[in-house]
């Protein structure tokens, strides 16, 4: 599987869209963190908060990137080469998952560099918060992988990926309203559910959401890890038994 991973990484680092994404990540983060974009809400934030605010762009980027990069396995038929070479569909899935995780981690590094250039202080708190954001992005990617590699039609993959982003956004807006009417234990449970969505975790860490929407960094991390494991298990369930045309 190492060879599969290397092959995917080779393709990734030559992909124009990904390279552009990394360049924009560093440039946009630096500009946004430094306060070059003016808005009454954003102007009131500190550099660190502005840096976290722009991190949502990574979620939007991977929503578009994953279908375009991954689905050609079916549309171009290149998954056949991998199966003929002796790899299983599960190995192809896992290698792509790891490849996208690496892509997210590399983009996150560019984002962090951009944030520091823009003026964010690289202290422990900001590092931990951004690691939580990274794991939120990874959990989002692992969900998108189910769509990208379990469905073969590119048009359905594209629609469902953007629908996922749409629904994440809606759930955050809706969740904010619901949480305000909840109380005590039900609010705590609601907060955990709210943080299942990676946009929910992002919103809770920007400071825009109410304090009760943030169940704590350790809970957010656990939710992300659990989601990664769960979606990977679903994504690889009986995948080897699928017939390929």
């Amino acid at each position, binding site marked *: 599987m*190492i*060879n*599969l991973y*290397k*092959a995917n990484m*080779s*393709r990734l680092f*030559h992909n124009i869209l990904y390279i552009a994404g990394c360049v924009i990540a560093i440039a946009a983060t630096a500009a946004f963190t430094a306060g070059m974009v003016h808005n009454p809400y954003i102007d009131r934030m500190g550099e660190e908060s502005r840096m976290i605010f722009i991190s949502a762009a990574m979620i939007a980027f991977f929503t578009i990137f994953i279908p375009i990069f991954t689905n*050609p396995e079916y549309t*171009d*038929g*290149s*998954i*056949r*080469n*991998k*199966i*003929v*070479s*002796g*790899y299983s569909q599960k190995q192809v899935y896992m290698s792509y998952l790891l490849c996208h995780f690496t892509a997210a981690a590399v983009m996150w590094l560019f984002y962090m560099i951009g944030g520091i250039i823009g003026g964010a202080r690289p202290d422990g708190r900001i590092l931990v918060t951004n690691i939580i954001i990274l794991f939120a992005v990874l959990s989002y990617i692992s969900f998108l992988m189910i769509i990208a590699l379990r469905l073969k039609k590119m048009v359905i993959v594209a629609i469902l990926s953007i629908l996922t982003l749409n629904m994440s956004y809606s759930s955050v807006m809706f969740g904010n309203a619901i949480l305000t009417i909840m109380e005590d234990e039900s609010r705590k449970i609601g907060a955990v559910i709210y943080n299942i969505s990676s946009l929910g975790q992002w919103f809770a860490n920007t400071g825009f959401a109410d304090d009760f929407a943030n169940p704590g960094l350790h809970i957010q991390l656990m939710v992300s890890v659990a989601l990664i494991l769960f979606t990977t298990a679903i994504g690889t369930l009986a995948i080897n*038994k699928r*017939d*390929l*045309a």
Partner: protein
Amino acid sequence: MDYVFKSYDLCKQYGSFSALNNLNMEIPKGSIYGFVGKNGAGKTTLIRQICGLQSPTSGSFELMEYKNDSKDIVRARRRMGAVVETPAIFKDLSARSNLIQQCLLLGLPDYSKVDGLLELVGLADTGKKKARNFSLGMRQRLGIAIALCGDPDFIILDEPTNGLDPQGIIEIRELIIKLNKERGITFLISSHILDELSRMATHYGFIDQGSIVRQMSSEELQRECCKSVRMRVNDTKLLSKVLDEKRYDYKILGPDTADVYEELVFSDMVKRCEKVGCSIISMEEHDESLEAFYLSLLGGSGND
């Protein structure tokens, strides 16, 4: 005899449709196996089973002595290459990048063979041109080059000359023969162009409705298609005496029919047969082209 592939009552169902129906087939090692059948006969389905793209409904097969349900079949697959239907290439990469991708997949330590492969299939001057801008023939050549990565022992080609110009067809044929002779690579070639197959195949398998109708070597096929005189007599045992005496090459088809692969003089044959008490009922020239043989074996209708 060593076999690269052997199947045992292989079946594949798609719902109520049987694509493969108790298929039993053997591909001798070192052969160029021509796989012939009508559209929808099951050729591509079988190829998909061998490549691991699909699993059989029932039955089994052995690929380079590994059983299809064994975990070690992966080792067999690492030693094979295939072009199944349309070439599997990344359209946004160049020919060279596609081959490098395949080298990476196979864990090859370097890309030194890439340029040689491009030269071999006639794509050395494509440069950075993306595969999306290739002609059909160029994509076919690239698919073959990808199949050749990793020095396989067994290569499956599904309609390899599809989309190639006459020059390209000759080049691919010569390449296949060369690789087979020099490196001992076994080929399974599925094709509709019988004339083309007859120039390179050493063995043939005829498939119809998911089953192998006939397997034969090229010599056997040659004989079947050879010019002959078909004689109908009252007793072929008596005829054999005459033919043996003359040392003629012949084949007894039944108690009253024989094919004689010689130029016969009718009057001479009549006299000789009369002497041994054999009556000739009819004699007719029998000249079967490969196409005619195919049609007689598999039927001429149903090109669906």
